[in-house]
């Protein structure tokens, strides 16, 4: 079982209490009524779906109820960091550089943070 650090509860909690909520740091266009269909589709439907480090929104739905942001490696399933909603994108370069990418999540399951 993964433990996820909730920045509001300030505690590592079981993954069972959390729900994924899509890609993070997507800003709603301020002139949304005027943008082209292509620009709207880009904002509304299209996601990067990167392999590797991604920034995601998560919600501690069965805990404090808060949305927050997380940097997660989609290959290792490892949470690199979590931080409160509203904060700018936090760099993970230092964290990522020290982590060896392992191809199967079973190998990292035990020591996930």
């Amino acid at each position, binding site marked *: *079982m993964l433990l996820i650090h909730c920045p*509001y*509860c*300030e*505690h590592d*909690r*079981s993954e*069972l*209490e959390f729900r994924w909520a899509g890609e993070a740091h997507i800003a709603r266009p301020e002139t949304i009524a005027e943008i082209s269909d292509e620009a709207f589709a880009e904002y509304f439907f299209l996601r990067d779906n990167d392999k590797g480090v991604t920034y995601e929104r998560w919600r501690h739905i*069965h*805990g*404090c*109820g*808060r949305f927050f942001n997380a940097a997660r490696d989609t290959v290792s399933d490892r949470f690199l960091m979590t931080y409160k909603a509203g904060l700018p994108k936090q760099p993970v370069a230092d964290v990522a550089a020290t982590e060896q990418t392992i191809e199967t999540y079973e190998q990292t399951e035990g020591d996930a943070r």
Partner: protein
Amino acid sequence: MADVATRTTPLRGTHGGSASVRLTPAAPAERLSLRAASGDVAALSRALGLELPERPKTSASAGGRTALWLGPDEWLVIDEGEGGLMAACAASGALHSAVDVSHRNTAILVEGQGAAATINAGCPLDLSLKAFPVGACTRTIFGKVEIVVLRTGEEAFRVEVWRSFSEYAFGLLAEGATDAAL
């Protein structure tokens, strides 16, 4: 025909436990789901007669009332005495949202040497006294249902659960109690 309505509780008549754990449906209580911003907490605390906790996983009790921190601006307030929580909040003068959830929840008291192990049968939370001391509380998950758990003593917990889930919660706690006594 009787002219008085008789109150029935969702877990009426149920009892359970094992050699090391007692499971008891709690008496009906008044409950409030309270939301407020940090600037309004002091006035609400004064009106309720207790200090609304502002740290994660903490609770505060006074005069038969207990306030449980659920989130940064959310509390579950339980009154086991005279009641009057809504009126107290309304008189506070502070901006807030209060919803009476007295009948949404019911509670199960889990007491005895195996109490923590019983809850851990369906909940991965660390319930050791170090991580979850007396007075600690949180919303979490128990098997398939959401609960709010409050440690009322070294070997005593109050498990708040939505009433329609209470039979399931009681059943799983009874299983856990049996396992805890092995």
